[in-house]
């Protein structure tokens, strides 16, 4: 087995140093609200120019792993996801923290990330050639149905009302279509020059989550609730490890969904956590506990996020097709080093490829160790007075948004969306469905239009979208997902009715 042959190289002095420093830097960058994994990897690419190909790739790979896990820290403690991948973690992680279980939530986050991450990397190591063929079977129609499957998750995203969630999701999809039609090239809804480039995911994510949080913090500070909102409990790590590993269903759903979503090029790895969270909630005996601090929510979403990391590198290394935006940046790093993805990578540059994959495996272990260690110091984050935290988040939001594309227009879009979201939240609309709409809108539209053209050239559009094994499987999943949401909601309503006869029945998601 080549992996064992190259393992000593992974653990050699210089590479081990890169792994340790990369893990720590990645965790800190990921925990900073507004700095996404994609941006963290892009920022550090110039540092790899001076390194040899193996070390450079190890640095980028370990950063990818650590930033995805680190993003959960701000999601749990500050209620601002460090990256789109951490939205699902926030849904139960922050309520857990508010219930005085912040340390526990952070422990589950890193342990689950480690488990999911190891599974994702093992898939990468053992099944790359096999899964590359599977990934190639996904054409526009299959990707369109995956986007629709993602949309069916909206009901689980923490809005008080499913209807308001769906409405917010539809508005999110509409917002994502501002700019140019990806196929016809038609300019749409560009009412001002600032909208010329459309609304991209990072400004939207930062604006929708960070700015309303800034408003909330200053409101708390003004009302004298400016000191720490919750305490950090003392909890032994082993207790978290035992509990976490006993959640086999949550870990399995997270790891399987994360791996599958990561494998599919263009599916947008960001939705792995959300789909896994939704599936686990639907299969749970107590779906009503989700969104209120259910540990399984954190376990599923974090294992999904990190299993996606390894899996998203399968189509990248074997076919040159990245499975997520961060994998696309990593592909850039690979090309800069003069390495071209494909089967030759594993024969002509076997040393680089296998050392890199071995390093990813080691980085999962380091991420768990350092993650659990830094979670001890998280109490200092929550001790920061609210007015100082609000000011810091506002500045980081502007900084993070501007630095993605060096665009003032992005900052204006971020601020506008953030302020609008704050007001919408006062009327019961949540940011989760809007972000999901913005993530899935372009995927759904591009693949729908491409599928339409292919269908017209073949046996018709309907035939193209509604035939084929994978299409039918995905359609069945969509129908099941919607059907289950309706049944679950009816059950909750009938339970509420039986508990309080004569009272107004509330529609809870």
């Amino acid at each position, binding site marked *: 087995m080549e992996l064992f042959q190259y393992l000593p190289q992974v653990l050699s002095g210089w590479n081990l140093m890169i792994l340790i420093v990369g893990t720590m830097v990645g965790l800190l960058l990921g925990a900073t609200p507004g700095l996404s994994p994609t941006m963290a990897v892009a920022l550090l690419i110039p540092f790899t120019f001076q390194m040899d190909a193996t070390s450079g790739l190890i640095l980028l790979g370990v950063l990818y792993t650590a930033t995805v896990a680190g993003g959960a820290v701000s999601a749990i403690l500050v209620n601002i996801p460090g990256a789109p991948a951490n939205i699902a973690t926030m849904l139960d992680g922050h309520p857990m923290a508010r219930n005085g279980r912040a340390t526990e939530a952070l422990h589950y986050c890193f342990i689950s990330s480690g488990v999911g991450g190891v599974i994702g990397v093992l898939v990468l190591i053992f099944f790359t050639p096999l899964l590359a063929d599977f990934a190639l079977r996904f054409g526009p129609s299959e990707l369109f149905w995956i986007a629709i499957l993602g949309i069916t998750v909206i009901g689980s995203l923490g809005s008080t*009302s499913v209807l308001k969630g769906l409405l917010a999701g539809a508005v999110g999809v509409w917002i994502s279509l501002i700019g140019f039609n990806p*196929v016809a090239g038609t300019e*749409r809804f560009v009412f001002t020059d600032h909208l010329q480039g459309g609304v991209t995911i990072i400004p939207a994510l930062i604006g929708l989550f960070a700015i309303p949080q800034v408003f909330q913090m200053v409101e708390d500070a003004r009302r004298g609730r400016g000191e720490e909102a919750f305490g950090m409990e003392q909890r032994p790590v082993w207790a978290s490890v035992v509990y976490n590993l006993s959640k086999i269903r949550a870990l399995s759903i997270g790891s399987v969904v994360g791996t599958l979503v990561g494998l599919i090029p263009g599916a947008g790895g960001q939705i792995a956590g959300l789909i896994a969270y939704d599936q686990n909630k639907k299969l749970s005996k107590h779906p009503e506990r989700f969104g209120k601090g259910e540990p399984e929510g954190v376990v599923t979403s974090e294992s999904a996020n990190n299993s996606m990391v390894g899996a998203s590198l399968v189509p990248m290394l074997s076919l040159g097709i990245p499975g997520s935006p961060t994998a696309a940046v990593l592909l850039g790093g690979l090309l800069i080093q003069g390495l071209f993805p494909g089967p030759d990578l594993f024969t002509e540059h076997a040393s680089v490829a296998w050392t890199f994959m071995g390093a990813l495996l080691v980085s999962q272990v380091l991420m768990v160790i350092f993650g659990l260690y830094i979670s001890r110091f998280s109490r200092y984050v929550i001790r920061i007075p609210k*007015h100082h935290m609000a000011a810091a988040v506002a500045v980081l939001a502007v*900084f993070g948004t501007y630095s993605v594309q060096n665009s003032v227009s992005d900052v204006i879009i971020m*601020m506008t969306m953030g302020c609008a979201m704050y007001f919408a939240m006062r009327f019961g609309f949540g940011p989760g469905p809007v972000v999901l709409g913005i993530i899935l809108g372009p995927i*759904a539209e591009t693949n729908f239009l491409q599928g339409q053209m292919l269908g017209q050239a073949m046996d018709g559009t309907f035939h193209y979208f509604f035939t084929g094994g994978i299409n039918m499987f995905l359609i069945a999943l969509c129908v099941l997902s919607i059907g289950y949401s309706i049944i679950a909601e009816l059950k909750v309503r009938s339970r509420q009715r039986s508990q309080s006869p004569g009272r107004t*029945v509330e*529609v809870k998601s």
Partner: protein
Amino acid sequence: MTGHRQHRLTAVGALLVAAGLAVVSFMPNVPGYEFPQMAAIGAMICAAILVLLALVPRQPITTIDEEPIPWGGIWPLLLILFGFLLVMGWLGFFATSFLAFFLITQIYSPQRFHWRGAIRGAGIAALFLGVLYLIFVTVLRVQVPSGILI
């Protein structure tokens, strides 16, 4: 304003927003608008059901989850954020951030204004931005908007 009335107004407002999206999506008679039209129709359907459930029964069936907007507390922040956008290009990111950081901490501090507190606030703002500058601009070479100052 009663909770029910605010809930009904929210539903009507949502319908108006969805109708606005539908109007701008259907107005241009050129290709390339099919998907936005589908999204706008989806939003219209959701908003119409929301209105029906909020207006038709004597008591709304959907959750009353609206809260009043605390204008008294948030208007200074709105002004600071708006000012940030206006001044950033002229003054530079770090100088503007320093002002915004300082103003937010002073306006929303639970303690009453005192010179010693203000100097401490300025020190914290300078330290935070100094670390940001050192890590991202000096080490990582991240671009930020620059003006007459940094």
